[in-house]
């Protein structure tokens, strides 16, 4: 157990304390007790920065299920350190924010902080786990804790709907990922990520490489809300705003990105991976930005913008993975810029999106609504919040002097470089990439402007608001201020960030590249009149025009996507599936014994008869058969006649008599076939059975109405004849397929062994006495059952 393991487990262990702190110290907001946890974790992680920046990694092994190759190995390198810092850092700020956001009188705070700590621990587990199965375990824990957090206000229907939707989609993806991970383990024979990376060549050449890749990507895409699995994220906005800020902008949605980045050394350099990751990322960017524009709820707008921004990061990771195809020697800035852009934008997005969510929470908290149609003119009332909103959204739009500008430039550089690759059919399709990215950025610019200008500019309309709006308390403003400060800081000192966090992270995504120092330049705010800058100017220019004309074409944009929402498709799919399942069950679960027996017999016929037909099991060999005497033939005919009498009888009495005749004839056959004991027993049993039948006959109602005849029902007839045929064929074939001599010879020494001259009785009580014992037991149980049924009557439940 190392400090890194302890770091992962601390949030989990602390959850045990939280309820006690909540119940015991009601006067102090529980959040204050939770706040030190992420803060301390952040500090202890931050202390590793210098060492990791030097290229150092830490690995601590803890055996868990060694026999299955599952070790809880904690591994720290640049990538996981970057994520760990984001998780703990934003986590601390979010907890501070939530202290002011959630009322300690009205809210169930212990639930909130327990779920939040569970989530934090799970997320830390995801990024530090080195074993893919352990990673999967923590992965599902993030899904579960996110589910709990979304449905925090479980009294609201929309919360439970959102939680259910998020859970269904992420768990479905998680299961796909588990399958992919197991496939990977099957290929490599290990579950350790580092050992998998070492087998890069083996994996890339394996036949199940593509299925494993697609399945794992499904997990990553569902978690990171990539198209078309993005639909859960807007509905997850029913969660409290601190949760939206933490889970649905900074951490959980980046778990998928982490997975893609972490597995790039395994899957990268492959065309399928390149196009899947880059393509899906770009589609997500375009779709998320496009749909964000038409939102009227600020949180929904941020949700779609998160989707779009995640699309940027994912597409950059896809483009950058091409570096692994070319190898270290050739790969210059052309390939690696994209990865740098991805990790840089990932950090930036965490800062500005966390800040923006907190801003929305403040507006919601102070104005009572998040609807931009009711908000306006808040600038003078909430100057600090306004400044924070400006910093966050201008950074998101990619404007200087904020960090989003730098990563947006890198994004354009990556896309422009990609169009020059000569691999993976990029020479034909590559031209599209910068164009799609550019269009997505224009929409991004438009919704960023809407985000800033609608609530804060224009006219203040107090009559539309429930509360008297005023500036938020400082405690609530402090966390977004820190994030906004980072937004500006990263713009002016990007290379400090790059040196200590981004390059080590890149070293994990592209092993060997950073060490070879193949053209990793510095991030500069100004590189001269590059195409990227012109593109940004274009974004601003066109974006402004689009924004100004927004009222004119808003009608079109609102109407068009409403018809084709993926959520509607999802709801439809669920409803259809449920309806189909219900109909299917109603169809075959009829509640009729007859139908169930029909299924059973039909399956008996098809399986037994069919397998005999297919395997050619039918063998008819009458050579060893004994001869038939005339009187035997007569007996056989009478037996059949008696059975038919049971079937065709008009009255129950005839049926019972028929059964009696059949029973006595069976006894007669026992006589003929030299089984005296059987004949005796059969005679007695048949007599008693007939008496019992007659008893029941007396009590039961007559056949339906008056002695009505059984009509022929065709399905039953077919099944019955089929069963009879199969049994006959089996009986005949069994005689022709005798494999070895019977063991009955042994029992002929019954006298020597058991002192009995009646062999059958010797078998029953001596050789195989156990059977008899339990047969007696069966008989006793039946007797007790009969007695109980007659004596004990249901108490008033079904009075006669």
């Amino acid at each position, binding site marked *: 157990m190392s400090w890194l393991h302890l770091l992962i487990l601390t949030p989990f262990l602390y959850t045990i304390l939280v309820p006690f702190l909540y119940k015991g110290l009601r006067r102090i907001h529980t959040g204050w007790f939770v706040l030190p946890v992420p803060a301390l974790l952040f500090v202890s992680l931050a202390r590793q920065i210098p060492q990791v920046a030097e290229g150092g990694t830490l690995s601590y092994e803890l055996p868990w299920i060694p026999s299955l190759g599952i070790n809880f190995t904690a591994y720290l390198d640049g990538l996981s350190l970057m994520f760990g810092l984001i998780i703990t850092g934003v986590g601390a700020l979010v907890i501070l924010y939530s202290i002011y956001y959630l009322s300690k009188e009205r809210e169930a705070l212990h639930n909130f902080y327990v779920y939040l700590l569970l989530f934090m621990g799970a997320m830390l587990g995801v990024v530090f786990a080195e074993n893919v199965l352990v990673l999967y375990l923590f992965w599902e824990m993030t899904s579960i804790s996110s589910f709990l957090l979304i449905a925090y206000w479980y009294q609201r229907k929309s919360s439970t709907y959102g939680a259910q939707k998020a859970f269904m989609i992420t768990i479905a993806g998680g299961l796909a990922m588990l399958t992919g991970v197991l496939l990977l383990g099957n290929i490599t024979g290990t579950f350790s990520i580092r050992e998998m990376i070492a087998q890069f060549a083996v994996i890339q050449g394996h036949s199940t490489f593509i299925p494993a890749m697609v399945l794992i990507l499904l997990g990553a895409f569902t978690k990171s809300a990539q198209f078309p699995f993005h639909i859960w994220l807007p509905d997850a906005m029913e969660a409290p705003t601190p949760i939206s800020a933490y889970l649905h902008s900074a951490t959980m949605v980046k778990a998928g990105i982490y997975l893609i980045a972490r597995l790039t050394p395994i899957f990268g350099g492959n065309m399928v991976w390149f196009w899947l990751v880059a393509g899906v990322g770009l589609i997500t960017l375009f779709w998320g930005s496009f749909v964000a524009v038409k939102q009227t709820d600020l949180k929904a707008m941020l949700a779609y913008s998160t989707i779009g921004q995640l699309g940027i990061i994912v597409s950059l990771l896809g483009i950058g993975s091409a570096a692994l195809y070319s190898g270290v020697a050739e790969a210059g800035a052309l390939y690696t810029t994209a990865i740098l852009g991805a990790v840089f934008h990932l950090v930036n997005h965490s800062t500005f999106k966390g800040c923006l969510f907190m801003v929305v929470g403040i507006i919601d908290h102070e104005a009572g609504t998040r609807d931009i149609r009711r908000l306006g003119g808040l600038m003078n009332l909430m100057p600090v919040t306004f400044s924070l909103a400006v910093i966050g959204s201008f950074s998101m739009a990619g404007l200087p002097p904020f960090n989003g500008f730098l990563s947006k430039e890198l994004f354009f550089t990556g896309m422009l470089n990609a169009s020059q690759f000569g691999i993976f059919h990029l020479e034909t399709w590559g031209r599209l990439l910068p164009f799609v990215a550019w269009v997505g950025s224009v929409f991004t610019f438009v919704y960023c402007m809407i985000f800033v200008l609608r609530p804060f500019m224009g006219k203040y309309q107090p009559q539309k608001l429930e509360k008297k709006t005023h500036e938020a308390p400082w405690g609530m403003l402090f966390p977004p201020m820190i994030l906004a400060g980072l937004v500006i800081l990263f713009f002016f000192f990007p290379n400090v960030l790059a040196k200590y966090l981004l390059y080590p992270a890149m070293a994990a995504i592209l092993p060997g590249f950073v060490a070879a120092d193949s053209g990793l330049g510095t991030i500069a705010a100004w590189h001269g009149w590059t195409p990227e800058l012109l593109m940004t100017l274009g974004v601003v220019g066109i974006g402004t025009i689009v924004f100004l004309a927004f009222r004119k074409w808003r009608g079109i944009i609102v109407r068009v996507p409403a018809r084709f929402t993926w959520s509607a498709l999802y709801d439809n799919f669920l409803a259809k599936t449920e309806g189909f399942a219900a109909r299917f069950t109603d169809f075959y679960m009829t509640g009729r014994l007859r139908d169930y027996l029909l299924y059973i017999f039909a399956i008996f016929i098809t399986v037994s008869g069919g397998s005999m037909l297919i395997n050619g099991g039918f063998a008819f060999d009458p050579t060893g058969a*004994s001869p038939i005497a005339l009187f035997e033939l007569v007996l056989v005919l009478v037996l059949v006649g008696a059975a038919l009498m049971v079937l065709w009888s008009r009255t*129950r009495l005839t049926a019972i008599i028929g059964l009696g005749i059949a029973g006595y004839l069976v006894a007669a056959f026992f006589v003929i*076939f030299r089984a005296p004991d059987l004949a005796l027993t059969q005679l007695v049993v048949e007599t008693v*059975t007939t008496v019992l039948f007659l008893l029941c006959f007396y009590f039961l109602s007559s056949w339906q109405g008056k002695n009505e005849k059984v009509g022929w029902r065709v399905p039953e007839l077919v099944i019955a004849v089929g069963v009879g045929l199969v049994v006959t064929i089996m009986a005949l074939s069994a005689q022709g397929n005798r494999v070895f001599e019977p063991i009955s010879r042994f029992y002929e020494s019954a006298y020597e062994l058991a002192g009995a001259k009646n062999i059958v009785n010797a078998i029953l009580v001596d050789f195989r006495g156990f059977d008899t014992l339990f047969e007696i037991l*069966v008989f006793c149980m039946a007797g007790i059952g009969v007695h109980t049924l007659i004596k004990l009557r249901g108490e008033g439940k079904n009075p006669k």
Partner: protein
Amino acid sequence: METLMSVVIGILFAIGVYLLLSRKLLRIILGSSLIAHGANLLILTMGGLKKGGVPLLEREAPSYTDPIPQALILTAIVINFALTAFLLVLAYRTYVSVGTDDMEQMRGLEDE
């Protein structure tokens, strides 16, 4: 003889199954009894018919009929009898409580 018995057993099974599929409780029990007869005869037939003498050692015979199927059938007869008796009483009780012996009318009772 074995061939003939196989056919008879098939007929017994067919009639038994047809009865099992009917709506009246009593018919269902009758059907299961017929199937039991069929099964007993099947076991006996599979052991081979009339090969050798009665399996009693005091009757000196060069060979005896296979005693194992007979022992098995004896067990089966008794168990089947216990089952039939229980089923009959169950049918009786059902009729007394529910007022019908029609499977179709027993469907969807509130107690289900």
